[in-house]
């Protein structure tokens, strides 16, 4: 907990300094090359850019904590509105991808482990690995071509009509979620598989089998619960990536998520937007990791009950 706060603080400092060292005068960037120097100076003054750095950082972070993320240079509107919308969109996409990949990935890993070193295991392991190494924009484009254009099953853009209901939105999100599914499936399946193989080889599994329990009970009751512990941690950590790290996918499918928001802000030198976006992504990552740790200790009696001893 304390550690996550410290890492968030460090991130905010880096984001802030990053904004400072980027080349270009902000006032000049906003007003364009034709504006006269006095107007630029006045703007810089009104933006508070000539105050000491420490003061600037302090007021930025203080406002951020209170929900005021500043005003976008480009849109001349509060940043927070954009961030909230984009974050909402990102969460939707992440949720869809998550719901697709977690059960299927775990199932794949379990099936592979139960058939270890047999053809089915090889297919799942090697197939999953090959899909993981393909970059998302490659699988994304291929999927758009096949499912969106040739077969025409799914819309190729994630921008749903403004009056779209829940299921329509879901329908629009399947294609963008698929490349994420492919890139994460192998990862989750592999984690699950190795956790399963270890649990299957363990002494307690032997004990359970030698008790004469049916194989199904052994796997459900004794193996899975220990095997999935490391997987759950990894999956929860991946949630951060699914929400904040999807610049490519969002751009490819013209989806207004937080990734593409940050990308646009960076290319438009919209620093308040950029800083707020990156910090938000950082918070999402930290929260996801924290949730992973909490989940792990909740599920693992050895950690949960350590204080009792």
């Amino acid at each position: 907990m304390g550690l996550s706060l410290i890492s968030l603080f460090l991130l905010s400092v880096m984001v802030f300094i990053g904004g400072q060292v980027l080349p270009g005068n902000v006032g000049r960037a906003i007003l364009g090359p034709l504006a006269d120097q006095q107007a630029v100076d006045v703007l810089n003054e009104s933006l508070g850019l000539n105050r000491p750095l420490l003061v600037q950082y302090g007021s930025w972070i203080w406002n951020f904590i209170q929900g005021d993320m500043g005003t976008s240079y480009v849109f001349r509107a509060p940043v927070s509105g954009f961030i909230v919308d984009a974050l909402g969109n990102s969460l939707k996409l992440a949720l869809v991808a998550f719901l697709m990949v977690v059960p299927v990935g775990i199932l794949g890993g379990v099936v592979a482990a139960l058939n270890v070193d047999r053809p089915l295991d090889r297919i799942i392991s090697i197939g999953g690995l090959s899909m993981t190494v393909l970059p998302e924009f490659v699988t994304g484009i291929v999927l758009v071509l096949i499912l969106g254009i040739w077969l025409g099953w799914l819309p190729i853009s994630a921008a749903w009509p403004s009056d779209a209901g829940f299921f329509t939105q879901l329908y629009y999100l399947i294609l963008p979620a698929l490349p994420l599914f492919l890139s994460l499936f192998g990862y989750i399946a592999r984690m699950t598989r190795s956790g399963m193989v270890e649990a299957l080889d363990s002494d307690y599994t032997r004990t359970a089998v030698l008790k004469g329990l049916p194989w199904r009970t052994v796997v459900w009751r004794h193996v899975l619960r220990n095997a999935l512990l490391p997987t759950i941690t990894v999956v929860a950590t991946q949630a951060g990536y699914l929400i904040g790290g999807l610049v490519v996918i969002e751009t490819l499918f013209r989806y207004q998520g937080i990734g593409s928001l940050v990308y646009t802000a960076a290319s438009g030198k919209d620093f308040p937007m950029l800083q707020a976006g990156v910090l938000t992504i950082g918070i999402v990552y930290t929260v996801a990791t924290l949730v992973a740790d909490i989940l792990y200790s909740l599920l693992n009696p050895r950690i949960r009950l350590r204080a009792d001893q």
Partner: protein
Amino acid sequence: MTDIAANALQLDNLSVAYRVGRRDRAVLRDLSFTIARGEAYGLVGESGCGKSTVALSVVRYLPRNGKVASGTISLDGQDVMRLGPEALRRTRAERVAMVYQDPGKALNPSIRIGRQLTEVFELGGLSGQAATDRALAMLNRVRISDPAGVMQRYPHQLSGGMQQRVAIAMALAKDPSTLILDEPTTGLDATVEAEVLDLIAELRRGLSASILFISHNLAVVSRMCDRVGVLYAGILVEEGPTDVVFNDPRHPYTVALLRCLPRGDQRKDQGRLDTIPGYLPSIGATIKGCAFAERCALATDLCHTTPPPLHDLGGRLARCHYHERAQELPRATPARVEFAMPPAGQSEAVLRVDGLNKTYHGHGHALRAVKDLSLDLRRGQTLGLVGESGSGKTTFARLLLGLVSPDQGGHIELDGKALAPRLGDRTDAEIKALQIVFQNPDSALNRSHSIRHLLSRALKRLAGLRGRQLQDRLDELVRSVRLTERHLVVKPRQLSGGLKQRVAIARAFAGDPRIVVCDEPTSALDVSVQAAILNLLADLQSKQDASYIFISHDLAVVRYLSDRIAVLYLGRIMELGPSEEVFAGPHHPYTEALLSAAPSLDRRENTRIRLDGEIPSAANPPGGCVFHTRCPRKVGAICETTEPPLAEAQDGHGIRCHIPYAELARLQRAGAARPARETSLPAAHPALAER
């Protein structure tokens, strides 16, 4: 069929192979034995001889690459190999149960004990409250205190002894006809081991189960089993009633194995232990004649060419061409001591420890791992440290080495000069003077370096040698631990456990240490290897005048090597004195209990002092004498209120007890004084009792 059904377990010409590198390698070769109903059969042999493979074959739980090549296994007359999946499951659920080493791993870490127990009864058709009641009854039966509380706990919340009791309860829950115990007490403290063995012996009387008891510990097997089979390279080389085989062995391997064990009367200054030359044939090796011929001093041409048959010697079997003169096997290591020991008690002290304390802080409470420890160690002598786990043995070793810092106030003196408490503050000379040999050489040696590199580095760092000098010293060092040139080029993992431990010893001796701390150096090794390592340590000590702090849970081993012994309990010295006096007594009641708990091939009393309960937590030690909660000789309120001093009973022999020395002597001559607290075991071996 009737004669088959009379046996609980019958193996006929069983051969098992493991597939390694596209080749089947034989592990068990044509193995046959039977266990009658209600009989306890022991299977002994060194690691790698196939003991556990027997157990796993019987329950059909061989690793994926293992398979039964030929032969049959019958449980209650039923061929195990022919069972379909459902029949196999039912056999496991009803007929056969298994308990193995390391109960901490055998129990599911994320399921409560109660659930793990009740599911066995649910298989038997019970449900809900009935299963819970039976589980509670079963826990009562294995004498666990607070069974209801234990049901709610997870395995990691129980001590090793409790975990093994739970595992035994789980195994016995289905009332099996065959119970397989595979090293069930290995890794447990001596007192806990004794309690678990007592429990098994007691339960045996109430159950009809036959027992297959697998152990590398001959003393444990001799205590627990009616008959014993000796396994060598997957071949049954000798079989017979336990007392007969151990007292009158007819196979040279059994003879040699028994000679490797330090017996009560053997000490380093009187003679060396015998060893077994050579190595066990590797798994899958082609064996032309007798499997043991390569290592047998009695072997003739016949032994190398013709496999000996299993001779029936009237109620016992031996697979040796020369079984009638097996006991004439010449010693592999002469008993003669090459270097005379300095007379005990005459040399000066190299190490003096005074008032050493170590408190660990954490979780809001303080844990006193070592309390007020004072002792000295003389040049060329060994101080043995004994005590259960948690007694502070290892913390003391770490304090000496400067790996942990002691509390304020204590002193360590090396050769009369104060030694800095922290390793970083010690001079190079002091560091090289104090070295350690760990229990597990695997983790102590860097696996990516060759042995030559490891030892050269130690010589460079500790002895400051370079070039030619280093080479000469390296050769000498390697010879002194009886390794050869060809061992130098390999990496640690290519060596056996015993050879690795020799490397670790060579490393410790690289800088001519004054003191070597040996922390359980032989407890991971087979007895024949252990004997060789003990001999080596004794030789090095007499040659180099080094002093040892020797930590071991094996009292016979400690006795063989030690001049003085310190008995630790909850971080305090309970008794300190010359080795023979501590063993012979009169001794502290705790020492008395430890000694009576240790299984031994020599001792045959059928009573044992039982310690009540578990060793208390060092974070919350009992007031007064810390041992009073478990002491069978507690005298009264004074034990609960006042901690006794370490009173000098005789010259150099101190005992921390309120009972005066003369009174202890009288009590202990009279034997275990309180019938209520002792266990009577059946005199299992009348033949031995007559000896």
